[in-house]
């Protein structure tokens, strides 16, 4: 029973990953000479790492489940 459920979950996960990859392929490719805007500083995921780190630290110390994607740093006595 548990094995069947795990197999079902694995199949769903693979389906999700496949759909995700297909979604990426479905968009028409953007040629390099049209990527000038994507290259801008303000289009980065975290344009200002110091600002992001301090905001995240403040939220992490006040909230039960705060965090972000990426390799986590060490904890602190604040939470």
């Amino acid at each position, binding site marked *: 029973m548990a094995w069947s459920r795990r197999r079902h979950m694995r199949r769903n996960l693979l389906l999700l990953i496949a759909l995700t990859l297909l979604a990426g392929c479905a968009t028409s490719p953007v040629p*390099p000479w049209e990527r000038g805007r994507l290259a801008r500083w303000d289009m980065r995921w975290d344009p200002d790492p110091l600002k992001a780190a301090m905001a995240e630290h403040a939220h992490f110390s006040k909230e039960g489940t705060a965090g972000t994607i990426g390799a986590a740093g060490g904890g602190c006595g604040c939470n």
Partner: protein
Amino acid sequence: MSRPSPSLSLLFAASAALLGHKAAQADETSAAHSVGYRFNVYDEDALSAQVEEGDPRRYHVDTQQFLFDTALGNRNTLNVSAVHEVMSGSSPWYLVPGPDNKPLEVLSGATIRDHRSAMTATLTHDAGGNDTRSVSATYSAERDYHATALGVERSLPLNSALTLAFGGSFSHDLLRPTDALLYHRIERAQKNTASMFGSLSWVLSKNAVLESGLQFNYQTGYLSDPYKLVVVDSSLDADTRPDRRSEAAWLVRYRYALNADASVHADARVAANSWGQHSLTLELAWYQGLRDGWQLIPGLRYYTQDSARFYAPFFDDANERYFSSDYRLGGFGALAANLNVRKRFGRWELNAGAERYHATTDLALGGADLNPGTVSYTRIYAGLDFHFD
């Protein structure tokens, strides 16, 4: 060596952008080396709940941040960041039932004074074709808390539109609470945190990119707060939580360039942990470039969480296995507004901003039970960055 013009740098960046979004981000602010400094002042509001006892001065933290980023040859970069914090003020200790069973807050009697120093070093290697691998190490030290963490990450373009990133980290934390014998606290404890993540980023169009990622954290060890107490059947007991916690989070980030000078950032995060807490975070920011190198960045953030299974302001049944009245384990919602102003002077950039964070049970999605300890704060910061070749 003369610095390439912004338009030429953008052309180089666009030329380098044959693979994925990350490759496209060798933008006009890229330089071989950069240093940055910020000074932050964090100030908590007075508690909304009635304070029964303790020092009413709330937490105040002055933080200095340093960043050094440098290229090591053609393929490696080293990023070193350091933080020094000085904390003072009192902290919520426990709750007692007042008239009509309304909770009254008891704050720590003496003003806490402590400082924290932390450093992170990250080495990134570009293996070619924008396949990058990073290793990072962090050390954080306080009088009563030491943490050591190691992390690895890899970013791999799958095709011209998709970039896969994945990695993991491990943190070992050591607690040595102060005044342990005086207050019958645990004298020494440790906890370990293992994390894994994976994400995919898409170039959706010449104006838009999207990232979707999953993060898993698993903690073991002493996860209670050694400084907090809880009223159980009319007597005081130590905050007692399970010694394991697993958490999963799904994060989606979207960046859209509105025109040559403005972009919108939209982030969403859904998380759940094995203590019964669920949360939702929504963030929105507007990056507006103005004349003469000025930039204005207003933003909004909404956060909501429900309570852990073993949270209550106080407990009647002493037979419960776990109990905590830490407000961070209770249900609440928080709304934050922030504003950042930046000004470039050639290779220098001046940076200042503020955040106002307001937390209350009224803002919790679907409502929340009584949580009198929620904290609201104001944070202001200013700093300077310098980029050089």
